[in-house]
């Protein structure tokens, strides 16, 4: 077991190293002069020289990387010249928004997928099952931004039940208002999760329901409900749990697009503004933070999955 954790940790460190290297190199692949891009066309020669000095652009690449990495490890992601703010501080404001969306989407995704998966597996091939399967197949062909637009058209433009571009209020200040504002974005993200998770749970459940211990339980005269929830469900959750883990990492990048559509001030909207305004230092910091958290979440999921399932440890 310690060997497994150790080798996984080495892998994590290597991937994180590559993540930092690529994020660092992003700034160096900018065609032309990055300092002009950062300062704008009206930069004076003095300010250019000052920035070159500050970024250490005259040093060799490895030395620059080492210094940059040192700063990053101390939580300093550089300074955004356009916002005139530290990138770290800017990100601190935005991350909670993205995390809230991702968390709620996964939560409601799982909450809906479990009953739907059980329902369609219980009478596999029946009318309910065919309906659920057909709908989830359709939803899987809808990228989340199309789903978001569909929901916008129905609930914001046509029915006018919910705001299309709500002003953001933090959950801690006005919980109800906050939740009302995130219904549409969270639904757009959660529906895709529901479709995927339902399908996986359904096929695992069907397999479990055909196994001998279920037949034995039936023969002993246990009730259907007991068999379904106490025997079949726990045995069918493994693939779904793995997938939930993968979805957590996916939801963070998925939130990028959804935030933008609903104008929510998360990390995704900020990345997009940073790219449009060519705020390169901010782009670099944001890409680094998103990529690194994605990698770390995947690592934690992968490890806990392997710890939970003894069969996988040998592989």
């Amino acid at each position, binding site marked *: 077991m310690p060997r497994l954790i150790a080798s996984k940790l080495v892998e994590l460190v290597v991937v994180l190293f590559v993540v930092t290297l690529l994020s660092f190199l992003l700034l160096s692949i900018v065609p032309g002069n990055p300092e002009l891009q950062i300062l704008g066309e009206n930069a004076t020669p003095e300010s250019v020289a000052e920035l070159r000095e500050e970024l250490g652009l005259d040093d060799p690449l490895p030395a620059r990387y080492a210094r940059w990495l040192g700063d990053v490890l101390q939580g300093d992601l550089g300074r955004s010249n356009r916002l005139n703010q530290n990138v770290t501080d800017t990100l601190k404001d935005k991350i909670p928004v993205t995390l809230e969306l991702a968390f709620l989407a996964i939560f409601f995704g799982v909450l809906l997928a479990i009953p739907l998966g059980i329902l369609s597996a219980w009478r*596999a091939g029946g009318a309910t099952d065919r309906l659920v399967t057909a709908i989830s197949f359709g939803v899987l062909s*809808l990228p989340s*931004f199309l789903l978001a637009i569909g929901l916008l*058209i129905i609930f914001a433009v046509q029915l006018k039940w919910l705001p*299309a571009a709500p002003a953001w209020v933090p959950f801690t200040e006005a919980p109800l208002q906050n939740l009302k504002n995130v219904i549409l974005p969270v639904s757009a993200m959660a529906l895709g999760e529901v479709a995927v998770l339902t399908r*996986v749970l359904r*096929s695992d459940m069907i397999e479990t329901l055909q196994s001998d211990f279920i037949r034995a339980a039936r023969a002993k005269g246990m009730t259907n409900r007991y068999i379904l929830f106490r025997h079949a469900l726990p045995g069918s959750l493994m693939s779904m749990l793995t997938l939930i883990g993968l979805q957590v990492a996916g939801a963070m*990048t998925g939130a990028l697009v959804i935030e933008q559509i609903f104008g929510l001030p998360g990390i995704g909207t900020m*990345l*997009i503004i940073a790219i449009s305004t060519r705020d390169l230092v901010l782009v670099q910091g944001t890409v680094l933070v998103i990529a690194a958290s994605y990698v770390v979440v995947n690592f934690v999921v992968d490890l806990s999955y392997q710890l939970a399932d003894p069969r996988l440890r040998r592989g």
Partner: protein
Amino acid sequence: MASIQLSTVAADSGSTAKRTKGMGVLFWASSVWIGLILLAAVFGDLLPLKDANRINPADKLLPIFSDGYILGTDQLGRDILSRLVQGAQVSVFISVVTVTVGILVGGLIGTTTGFFGGRSERLVMAIVNVMLSFPALVLLLGVVAMVGASLKVITLVFCVLAIPGYIRFARASTLVLMKREWVLASRMIGATNRRLILRVLMPDVLTTLITFGLLALGGVIVAEGTIAFLGFGIPPPQATWGSMIAEGKSALDESLNLALVSAGAMFFTILSLNLIGDGLRRKYQHRDAQL
């Protein structure tokens, strides 16, 4: 896309009767739709359509079935049908190139590393694992932000991002194939490594990769659409489905037509690709089971 493959394997096992019926209406309807999209993309320039970029302020945001504009017009009065065809060219080009490059390059690298094994295999797989653990969309946005978007840049980045998945797939099937009789037999009669890789293993590996690639086509179209929707795709006036959907979204208060038509085109294309992939997978699995 990976999620789609995980599903319904167990669910199919019970319905043998259904399978013998052939591919079904949905499969053929999907094939017709994909055929139309392909034809539109390939022969788009020859079709008697209006200029996709001609601005016509008098005719803006016309509804569907308007006089002279079958699918209506956008905010600038441009013909939606012509722009859909132009967008189809982009989607088809990027997805077909990405998947073909992925299958060929990834297939060759994966088969070769799986065949030889050893240290080089471990190195290649380590690189593949690192690349696969990256959030592709973020990396893509980062590169586009720094270099600027163009058809070339986007296609290139897509290809680079696609290859690792195919390498992993090809290596896995190679390891399985190497134990099969005909491969062992070719080895025994003294086939060279080159012949074994290119003539014995590759044809089989490629067949598996193509099924996977069919499902991946939809994924590439979605990814390109997402990038374009966010405004970082191929710059205007070039129409892409993603940029049309974004324009449709900003015109929602005045007209639903542009959003619905362009989103519909993308949705039906992805749905069709999924249905075709699903149909082929069932048929293929069925044949495998019979052997």
